[in-house]
């Protein structure tokens, strides 16, 4: 490794350079906005673009250190091994605290560069101020990385072997889950920068809200994708049949998601009607605050979680200080400037904008309960010294009913017109959806004999889904014209239908899942969930960096296999489940431990699950993400089509 003596140091140098550039970008941008100077604004934009390139270089160097297994670098030693497959050597770059913080900086700088490149309808002063604020965000993140968790720190003497990446993380979905999630988290910094820039300007108009929307939608879509992938990974990798555990770190990604969802909707109201401006600004600040809180929760290890990386209080305090600086500073600026923002006088009670307000209040309150459940243990420990944990039932009891209430209003909102809606007219159409929902509830109660809350939950999902279908029908007017509906309609329809499908899947899975743990000998057959499961045989298998026992099963007449892997370097076993997906749900097999129990030494513990309609959860979440992606296309097109018309605030539809 003598030849690479300077590579890590070059990385650290590039990181320092990027810090200086981001600081310059911050100063230039804010000053340019204040003086409204075109040349200074262009300089800020150019600095932002170059800083992103410099950080990209630093990140590429870290990847190359992982690829070459340079064990003189501490972070490589702690998280990599020569025997690891290529993809996971690369993924190992961000599968640890230091590397993921570098990724955080890179993403923040990338967003600054994008902001600098795509000015769109923004006025010059707003644009340069936003670039400036984004520069400050990047600079603080780089300072934290450089001084408290540098990925380029060396080990002396260098060890000969590394400790390997946690085997649970050696999975294709987990290779892209963190970057997606980080793009989502850090993506919330752009609405924040735009909000702070608008507060500096002291002016909020439709053009500002129009500039805000694509960035919010981008962050929300990335968060949706990242969370969905993480959930799917937990489902097939952890081997417990579950897909969401209300783990503090899951909540940490879910809260910014809720804030972004609220912000998406309130920004539409601000663009179309000019109202809710102050609330939109507040949401943008809080949304980024929650994204930072997410980083704090994941990185500090203050909460017991499956994800907690580093238990280093110094880092935790530093991230907490960052959080207070941005949220506290943002809120102070808000308190000072927001009362000056002029808003048009109120609106009619029955209208699309008031439905959107209901959406926002609902999402914000639901987010508040998740926040309380997540932080309550910290609070109680600080106040009384008692250690507690808040379990999933809390979140099911609080979050479930609030979202159900929100989903009652969901199909109504698109049917109401702006300014004045016609509730009677909406009901004339929606009573069909109410019939469908009632029918679904009756089926659940009478035929499946499920509990009342399951009937209610599934009815809510069907109500949303049918309501969305009726909306499509109304917009198109006839079957022939459905295909001709504009893309913007499809974006909303996909996201809302996804929410409905997700609800049905989540309620069905939670209330009707079956599970059983059995001891099986090869050749033995058991009956579970109406199917015959036979353990055919168990054979050893060697993977690239693990050894495995593979159990071959037959479920009725379909073959499926489940594995138990052992990673020698880290000494960890993992489970690779066998899943048979069908229309009614997933048949899910996990191979447990061998040679124990009453049946004899050849018997294996086998865990069997039947997860009804579980795929609807992931399909629904995927549809929401697709809706977001379509919406991005729509907003991008709109911007390309009419850059000049952007200054006026005339609604398009």
């Amino acid at each position, binding site marked *: 490794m003598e030849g690479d003596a300077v590579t890590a140091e070059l990385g650290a140098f590039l990181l320092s350079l990027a810090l200086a550039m981001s600081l310059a970008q911050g100063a230039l941008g804010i000053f340019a906005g204040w003086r409204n100077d075109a040349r200074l604004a262009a300089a800020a934009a150019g600095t932002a673009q170059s800083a992103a390139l410099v950080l990209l270089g630093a990140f590429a160097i870290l990847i190359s250190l992982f690829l070459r297994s340079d064990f003189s670098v501490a972070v490589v030693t702690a998280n990599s091994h020569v025997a690891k497959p290529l993809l996971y050597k690369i993924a190992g770059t961000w599968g640890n605290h230091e590397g993921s913080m570098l990724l955080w900086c890179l993403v923040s700088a990338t967003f600054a560069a994008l902001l600098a490149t795509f000015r769109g309808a923004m006025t010059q002063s707003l644009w340069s101020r936003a670039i400036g604020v984004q520069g400050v965000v990047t600079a603080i993140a780089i300072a934290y990385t450089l001084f408290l968790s540098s990925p380029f720190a060396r080990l002396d003497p260098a060890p000969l072997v590394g400790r390997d990446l946690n085997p649970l993380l050696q999975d294709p979905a987990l290779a892209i889950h963190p970057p997606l999630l980080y793009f989502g988290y850090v993506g919330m910094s752009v609405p924040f920068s735009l909000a702070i820039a608008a507060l500096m300007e002291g002016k909020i108009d439709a053009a500002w809200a129009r500039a805000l929307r694509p960035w919010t939608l981008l962050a929300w879509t990335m968060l949706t994708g990242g969370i969905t992938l993480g959930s799917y990974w937990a489902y097939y990798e952890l081997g417990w049949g579950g897909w969401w555990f209300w783990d503090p770190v899951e909540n940490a990604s879910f809260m910014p998601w809720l804030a972004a969802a609220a912000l998406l909707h309130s920004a539409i109201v601000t663009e179309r009607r000019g109202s809710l401006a102050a609330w939109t600004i507040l949401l943008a600040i809080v949304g980024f605050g929650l994204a930072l809180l997410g980083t704090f929760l994941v990185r500090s290890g203050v909460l*017991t979680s499956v994800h907690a990386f580093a238990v280093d209080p110094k880092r935790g305090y530093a991230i907490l200080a960052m959080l207070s600086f941005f949220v506290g500073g943002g809120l102070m600026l808000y308190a000072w400037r927001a009362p000056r923002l002029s808003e048009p006088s*109120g609106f009619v009670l029955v209208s699309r904008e008031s439905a959107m307000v209901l959406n926002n209040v609902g999402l914000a309150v639901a987010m508040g309960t998740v926040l309380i459940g997540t932080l309550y243990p910290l609070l109680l420990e600080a106040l009384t010294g008692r250690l507690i944990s*808040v379990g999933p039932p809390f979140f099911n009891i609080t979050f479930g009913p609030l979202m159900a209430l929100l989903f009652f209003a969901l199909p109504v909102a698109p049917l109401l017109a702006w300014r004045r809606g016609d509730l009677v007219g909406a009901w004339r159409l929606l009573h069909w959806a109410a019939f469908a929902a009632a029918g679904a509830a009756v089926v659940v109660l009478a035929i499946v004999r499920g509990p009342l809350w399951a009937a209610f939950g599934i009815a809510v999902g069907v109500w949303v889904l049918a309501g969305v279908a009726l909306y499509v029908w109304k917009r198109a007017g006839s079957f022939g014209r459905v295909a001709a509906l504009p893309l913007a309609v499809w974006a909303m329809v996909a996201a809302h239908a996804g929410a409905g499908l997700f609800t049905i899947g989540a309620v069905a899975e939670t209330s009707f899942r079956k599970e059983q743990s059995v001891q099986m000998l090869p050749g033995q057959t058991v009956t579970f969930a109406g199917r015959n499961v036979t353990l055919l045989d168990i054979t050893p298998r060697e993977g690239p960096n693990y050894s495995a026992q593979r159990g071959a099963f037959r479920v009725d007449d379909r073959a499926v296999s489940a594995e138990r892997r052992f990673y020698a370097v880290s000494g960890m076993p993992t489970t690779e489940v066998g899943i048979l997906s069908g229309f009614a749900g997933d048949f899910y097999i996990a191979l447990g431990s061998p040679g124990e129990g009453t049946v004899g030494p050849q018997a294996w513990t086998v865990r069997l699950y039947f997860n009804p309609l579980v795929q609807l959860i992931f399909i629904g979440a995927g549809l929401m993400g697709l809706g977001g992606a379509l919406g991005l296309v729509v907003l991008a097109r709109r911007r390309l089509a009419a850059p000049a018309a952007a200054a006026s605030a005339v609604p398009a539809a």
Partner: protein
Amino acid sequence: MRKSSRRLIVIGAAGVLLALAAGLTLYGLKDSVAYFYAPSDVVVQAKAGERVRIGGLVETGSVARGGGVISFKVTDGVGAVAVSYQGDPPDLFAEGQGVVAEGVWRGGDTFAAERILAKHDEKYMPREVVEALKAKGEWKGTP
């Protein structure tokens, strides 16, 4: 509709939603909070019917399996509690390793756990276990 009465309706609706959320939150916190205890404390301190988490190390040589039930002892070096669990423990469950058993405390000799947690990342013991071990002076890792 006058502006003031419209504002009243909006604030009223938000207030109802907030009250509902607050009620649900209090109700939920009452029933789904689990208190954490060290094995040597739980017998004396836990109230019957309380949801508890007992954290410590799996005592070496104490694990026994049979009939789909696994039983073992959780220790913090001072005291130990016998735990039984119906089902298969997590992959990382092993003798001498950190573990958290969650369930409802009913007194008696054996704690019937509803959930067994072993940290997914083997490098870090559950923080609660570390705190319990530190409090008992049994912690051997970094301070």
